[in-house]
């Protein structure tokens, strides 16, 4: 019983981080129809920056967010403006995959070059701390990571639903031509959407650095599940991505009990294949998802 509860708690905590990152991926896809393979590479980059910051200065890695979030936002805007927007619209989906794949490889290579392939881990005074709730053991760092992800997701939600900018962004996602007709500068909005997406990677990476051992090729372990999540949720739907992230994170965590950690990872891919077989547009995707 306590094992089950433990798995559920861990699943929810993990699902929160997945949800934030999948929301970022969904934003890129929404504004530009881009499948951003480099998302998880930026995630690992942020984790490395947090680790580097904390080992150099001895300050808590969370503080690095102050620098990495704006930095990643600017990088995202720059990337959309200078690289993605240059691609031909007709082959945008395919070529952008290759381009972001190339960026992911470059980041992985540079990380390995600068920080070597050694596994790194942030040392924290509260790193080993945990507490018990109803027999389930919760590590403090995992809770902080979840809190960070949940707060960012909430902020993202509020921005998207309550602000004028959020309305413009959603309009751009739903129908770019119509958005242009009502006077929205969709190109600028797409740039900002990209920036926000990359900012989620900064937040996620910092959260990841708290309780994970990091190494340059780690991003491949993240991109697969994240891709599965956005397809299951329906490409382009942020609530769909968040719900799918929670369900799949929970499922993975629960399946670890009978199957072990390695085989439990296959759950994401099984879900991906089943979704594409039964409901290719995903479970929450609208009109947009059906065409991609």
């Amino acid at each position, binding site marked *: 019983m306590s094992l089950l509860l433990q798995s559920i708690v861990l699943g929810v905590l993990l699902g929160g981080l997945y949800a934030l990152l999948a929301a970022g991926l969904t934003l890129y896809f929404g504004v530009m129809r881009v499948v951003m393979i480099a998302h998880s590479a930026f995630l690992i980059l942020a984790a490395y920056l947090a680790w580097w910051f904390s080992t150099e200065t001895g300050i808590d890695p969370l503080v690095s967010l102050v620098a990495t979030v704006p930095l990643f936002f600017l990088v995202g805007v720059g990337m959309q403006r200078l690289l993605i927007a240059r691609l031909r619209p007709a082959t945008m989906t395919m070529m952008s995959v290759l381009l972001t794949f190339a960026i992911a490889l470059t980041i992985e290579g540079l990380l390995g070059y600068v920080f070597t392939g050694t596994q790194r881990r942030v040392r924290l005074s509260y790193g080993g701390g945990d507490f018990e709730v109803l027999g389930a053991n919760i590590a403090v760092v995992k809770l902080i990571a979840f809190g960070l992800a949940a707060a960012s997701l909430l902020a993202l939600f509020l921005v998207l639903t309550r602000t004028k900018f959020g309305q413009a962004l959603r309009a751009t996602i739903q129908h770019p031509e119509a958005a242009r007709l009502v006077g929205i500068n969709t190109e600028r909005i797409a740039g900002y959407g990209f920036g926000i997406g990359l900012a989620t990677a900064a937040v996620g990476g910092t959260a990841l650095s708290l309780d994970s051992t990091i190494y340059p090729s780690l991003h491949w372990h993240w991109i697969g599940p994240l891709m599965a999540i956005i397809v299951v949720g329906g490409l382009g739907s942020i609530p769909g991505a968040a719900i799918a992230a929670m369900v799949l994170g929970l499922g993975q965590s629960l399946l670890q009990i009978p199957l072990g950690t*390695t085989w439990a990872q*296959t759950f994401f891919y099984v879900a991906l294949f089943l979704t594409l077989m039964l409901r290719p547009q995903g479970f929450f995707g609208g009109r947009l998802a059906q065409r991609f």
Partner: protein
Amino acid sequence: MPSASDTVRAPRAGLATALKAVGLLALVVAVVTFPMLAANPFILSVGVVIMSYAVLATSWNFVGGFTGYMSLGHASYSGLGGYATGLLVIHTGINPWLALLAGGLLVAVVAVPVGIASLRVRGASFVIVSIALVLIMLLVFQSWSELTGGSNGLRVPRPFGPDVLRPEQHERFFYIHAGLLAVALLLWWVIDRSRFGIGLKAIREDEDKAQALGVPTFSYKLVAFVISAFFTALGGGLYALWFGFLDPIFQFSILVGAYMVLMSLLGGIRSLFGPLLGAVIVGYALEFFKAEYGDTQFHLVALGLLLGIVVLFMPDGIIPALTGLVKRFTPQASSIREVTQAELAEQRRLGQAGEEPPGGPGDTARNVAEGARS
């Protein structure tokens, strides 16, 4: 039926054919004589590796070039082909060449459900599935160590007896790879000229229009995909027989898939020999870097930057860029896009004066494809 692209071609066709024949002959001679000219067994083994890349890239191009669907995960099929061949040889003891063929067919069967899952919707899901498949295969083949040897790897028996020495092995495998490459190229050429190929290229240019014109897009894509997986698996199996050792990390590496894409894209995915040219360039560069600098992280950066540059500045590849350059100096090139509205109207008028009505559905599809090729 007259189409705008037919009319301007005729005069220089004879010369072009002769040039093509000479080029093809030179290529064949170069491939046949390479093992004799190779200075030492190492150079010969590099030749085999490049040939293997050429087979893989050309196989990739069945789906990437014709339909425009870029698979980043073709390493799954080469890896599966390698393991299928190796395991069949080890466990059933059948003739290795039979095992190779059986392995290829097995992978083709596996590719059917994968294709159904990933091709029903458009490109994005296809790419996602292709990457996911490599990751899942890596996971399975590392974990399932009773069958695959896990991370310790799998030793595949050589098809030739111990009396055949290493250089001799390299030479034989070089020619076998070349043979497989020739078959793949021939099939690509045949498809390129067929109604099936025109349908595939119409999908690449505009899938909605192709569908509206009655191209059975889903089944066409699926067939191209399965053919591609079959040849990729043969390439992987052949590599397994030559190299004699399989490790999941290298077989199901996302990098191998990326090499195939880079090679094809660099050479030109719309040309028959594009992937071969790309394989020679990239394969040689890879081996050169490995020999000079060893395995550092630097090759990842180089690969990433090169891929990025090709995608941004040269998405059509070297061959179209070169032929475009040559065409500048020849009289009026033949492309539908260079026919003005007035000329087209004139042709239509003449066409109507003759009995055939201009522009049926088949005609439009061909024009789309022709326009795309040039």
